[in-house]
């Protein structure tokens, strides 16, 4: 029984189409990621599922309640951590947590107890009674996430939770969240433009591009669906592109070839076996190379396959993305 069901969601801002029919289900107790570049529609989707925004079309339910007809029940079931900070800078960390819980009807005593627990879990106890505006950015982000958890919701939305955090703080935040989530039955919906983050954290993910879901599944399955790893070849001149593409396509074992200017990617079940033959054939065809490499299938490739372009080209540069790994071979 899915805890979230979204079906055919559409939304436009003035003339800009932000969502163009987004549908997906999220199973209870799992970590689910919406992956895509900035402006793909991830935040809009989460805002609709949090009742902050009304869709123009389509339906969505959270914890069995319709977001349009039963918004109060939805709000009672969720914790929402936006991309922007949501804490009150003029209140202390503890006051922020207690107020968040008490607005939802948690008693004063339980709110205090829960606040103390979370301050401990996120390693914030030392600063609990200082105004949140005096905290460091990393601590403030942790406070935001803690505020999403303080009332023990059924669904927690984390909209780009680690943007702006350094890698160490990111790892630490995720470790804490996963520790609190595992075994609690909580469902986490995460949006991110970090391929790596979606790959490591999510049980399931959808790739969102230009307001549409272009791929859905488990990260491992999505990568396996591509049919193996990739032989990547960099040509000295893009003019040889078409010729080189034909050469690679003719090789046995190559499933698919994609050309991006002077870079060719040939997907093959046995990329390691294909690479030497590819080099031989290209030399025979007199195509000068700058380099060649084997790239493990990554979500990058999944994205490339389904969104039809490289991840980086469509969004901002994302330092945390999974880089192609493999040994460079001089040509």
């Amino acid at each position, binding site marked *: 029984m899915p805890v979230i069901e979204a079906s055919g969601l559409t939304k436009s*801002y003035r003339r800009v189409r932000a969502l163009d029919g987004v549908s997906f289900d999220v199973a209870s107790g799992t970590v689910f990621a919406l992956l895509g570049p900035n402006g793909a529609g991830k935040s809009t989707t989460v*805002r609709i599922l*949090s*009742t*902050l*925004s*009304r869709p123009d079309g389509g339906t969505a339910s959270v914890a069995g309640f319709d977001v349009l007809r039963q918004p*109060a029940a939805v*709000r*009672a079931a*969720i914790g*929402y951590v*936006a991309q*922007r*900070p*949501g*804490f*009150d*800078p*003029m*209140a202390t960390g503890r*006051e922020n947590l207690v*107020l*968040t819980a*008490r*607005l*939802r*009807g948690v008693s004063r005593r339980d709110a205090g107890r829960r606040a103390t627990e979370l301050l401990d879990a996120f390693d914030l106890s030392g600063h609990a009674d200082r*105004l949140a505006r005096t905290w460091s950015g990393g601590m403030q982000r942790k406070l935001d996430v803690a*505020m999403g958890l303080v009332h023990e919701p059924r669904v927690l939305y984390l909209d780009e939770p680690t943007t702006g955090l350094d890698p160490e703080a990111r790892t630490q935040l995720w470790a804490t969240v996963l520790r609190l989530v595992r075994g609690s039955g909580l469902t986490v919906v995460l949006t991110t433009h970090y391929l790596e983050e979606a790959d490591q954290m999510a049980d399931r993910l959808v790739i969102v591009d230009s307001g549409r879901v272009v791929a859905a599944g488990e990260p491992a399955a999505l990568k396996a669906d591509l049919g193996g790893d990739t032989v990547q070849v960099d040509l000295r001149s893009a003019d040889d592109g078409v010729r080189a593409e034909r050469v690679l396509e003719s090789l046995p074992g190559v499933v698919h070839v994609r050309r991006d200017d002077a870079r060719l990617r040939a997907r093959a079940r046995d990329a390691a076996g294909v690479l030497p033959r590819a080099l031989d054939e290209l030399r025979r065809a007199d195509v000068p190379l700058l380099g060649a490499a084997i790239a493990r299938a990554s979500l990058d490739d999944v994205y490339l396959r389904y969104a039809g372009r490289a991840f980086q080209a469509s969004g901002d540069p994302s330092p945390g993305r999974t880089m192609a790994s493999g040994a460079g071979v001089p040509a």
Partner: protein
Amino acid sequence: MTLALTQTGLLTARSLRTLGRQPVYLAFSLVQPLLWLLLFGHVFTAIGRLPGFGGSYLEFLTPGIVAMTAMLTANWAGTTFVQDIDRGVMDRTLSSPTRRGAIVAASIAHQGISVVILGALVFGVAGLAGVRFPGSWVGVPVTLGLAVLLAAAFTALSDALAVLVRSQEALIGLSQFLALPLSFLSSVLMAPGLMPSWVASAARWNPLDWAATGSREALSASPDWGLVTRDAVQLAVLALVLAVGAVGAFRAYQRSS
């Protein structure tokens, strides 16, 4: 319903706590009404010698200044909303089961409390300046009550505008645009008998004037409580209508964001 009341209490406590942590703002709001009172009271002392004012000009002016202070203070209420929207605090609150009514009610409660403090202070300073009201002491709490109703109306209006325009500049511009004509098209500074007739008829539709005339009536030697009640009811109805509008403004916010 009880949860909505609890939420109102929690949010009011939050805003008062924030005010307590920025005492500069409190000091600013204290200075303004005193300036009005002493500046107008002394610069225009001679006005009091005109027929139509009864006692001293300062005595005439004090209840109107309480009302004007209420309006001007409440006009700033929405800036907190804009700040909360900018900071993301509003989205956090709106994604929780907090009633929209509680958010507006807390804002009104906060302004109401401020206005009672500021109004009492205006009366205190007027007393020190030698103002003595001919009526019973009951006129003072009635004046503060009318000021609270007026503040409720302007708080609701400011909150609604804040949610709709979502910009400090636009909000402050709109409230200034409103405050000045309302102040001068009223009997706050000038006795109704001495006003040009078109100003006097405009003043009849001016909520600031309702509060000012009601307060002066309540402080007079033999108040006509019927008139005071009429002013109070008008203000209460206006406040209620605007508060409902402010709650409704959140729906527009939800559609456009």
